[in-house]
């Protein structure tokens, strides 16, 4: 029985952006979880999931540092990525038609710090507090990262911006 293997793999896959590295990260994370199982202090299923995904997330980030790959992302800078541009608004109807490929590409283009909050919120349905625990930031930071990540996704998915 390997609970949450799919959730772990999805997060790892979005963070590494390829199957091979994602598999290594997940394997490594589950072994770490086993090794440090006594440090799990939470109660109940939700906190166990958050605990496991925290390990996956940290494993992916240390993998990135070890590999020294900047291929993963443009370096993250809180101020550089603060998208306060009010600008035009995407047509909701066109967003509705966004395809799987376009969405994945749009998410993959985000810096990893944005990517992970989108995955944890939209695909795992976690609360700001839970996401904050996994990512290691306050809930307010989770909110602002989510907000900026969504602004960027809307801009990228807006058809007339296209290849920009």
């Amino acid at each position, binding site marked *: 029985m390997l*609970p949450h293997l799919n959730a772990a793999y999805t997060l790892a896959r979005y963070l590494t952006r390829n199957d091979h590295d994602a598999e290594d990260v997940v394997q490594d994370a589950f*072994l770490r979880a*086993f090794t440090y199982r006594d440090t799990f202090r939470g109660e109940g*299923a939700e906190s166990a999931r958050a605990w496991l995904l925290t390990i996956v997330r940290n494993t992916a980030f240390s993998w990135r540092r070890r590999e020294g790959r900047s291929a993963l992302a443009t370096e993250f800078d809180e101020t550089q990525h603060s998208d306060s541009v009010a600008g035009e*608004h995407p047509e909701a109807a066109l967003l509705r038609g966004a395809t799987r490929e376009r969405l994945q590409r749009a998410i993959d283009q985000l810096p990893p710090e944005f990517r992970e909050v*989108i995955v944890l919120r939209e695909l*795992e349905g976690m*609360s700001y507090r839970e996401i904050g625990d996994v990512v290691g930031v306050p809930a307010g930071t989770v909110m602002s990262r989510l907000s900026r990540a*969504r602004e960027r996704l809307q801009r990228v998915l807006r058809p007339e911006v296209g290849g920009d």
Partner: protein
Amino acid sequence: MSHENLRAQLDAYLDGELASVEAGDFEAHLAGCAECTRDRDDRLALRTAIRAAAPVFPASDALRERVRQGLRAREAESAGARRAMPRPWSWLALAASLALVALGGWGLGLRSGATESVSDEVLRSHIRSLMPGHLTDVLSSDQHTVKPWFNGVLDYSPPVYDFAGRGYPLVGGRLDYVGGRPVAALVYGRRRHLISLLVWPAGRTAAAPSTPRFSQGYHLLRWATPAYTYWAVSDLGIAELKDFTQLVRQADSTAGAGPGRY
């Protein structure tokens, strides 16, 4: 509070992270602010697109086996090392609690009772219906087409009305599942918004207080007639959704709501 300050709360509002007082303030602002309303609609569209179409990656069987073997090897090592001082087998306890969630998926963490889970199912039904191609099984604004369609797939005949003249045109109908049983879901339009109206025979689900619920950017309203239980869900404002439900109630009362099934 200023527009700027309120605008900054949009995501927290849609993610259900605002306290009810703050959410009420935000909704009051939303009612009078076209810019925030448009931003909200864009966010809802984005969220719907992500949940409908962003890929999730199931682990391959090969990975599953590899992880399992890795854990088994690690387990054997640590069993040898720890024999002198046995500890509670906390990994098993952890795995057991993880398994509970594994069965649930993302939307199921909120259950606090029967009504809660029915309203969760209704909400998921509506969100699912917003995915491309999932809105309707029978696409017709003609109630005399939609109603017979249900007769073929359900063991009850739901009341079907069209309120095009009142600004809520019938868009179609679909078959959905609540509590593991097929139910009728009617879809109505209102400008760019959609309303799902789920209806099933009274007595199938526990009677519950019909307090409006707000979750993930959608309002849910429940009411019952002697014959049917109704749920309406939409991202429309609560006032308009109530207006819509009032039309359904009126239509029911003038139609006599039929003999129903108990």
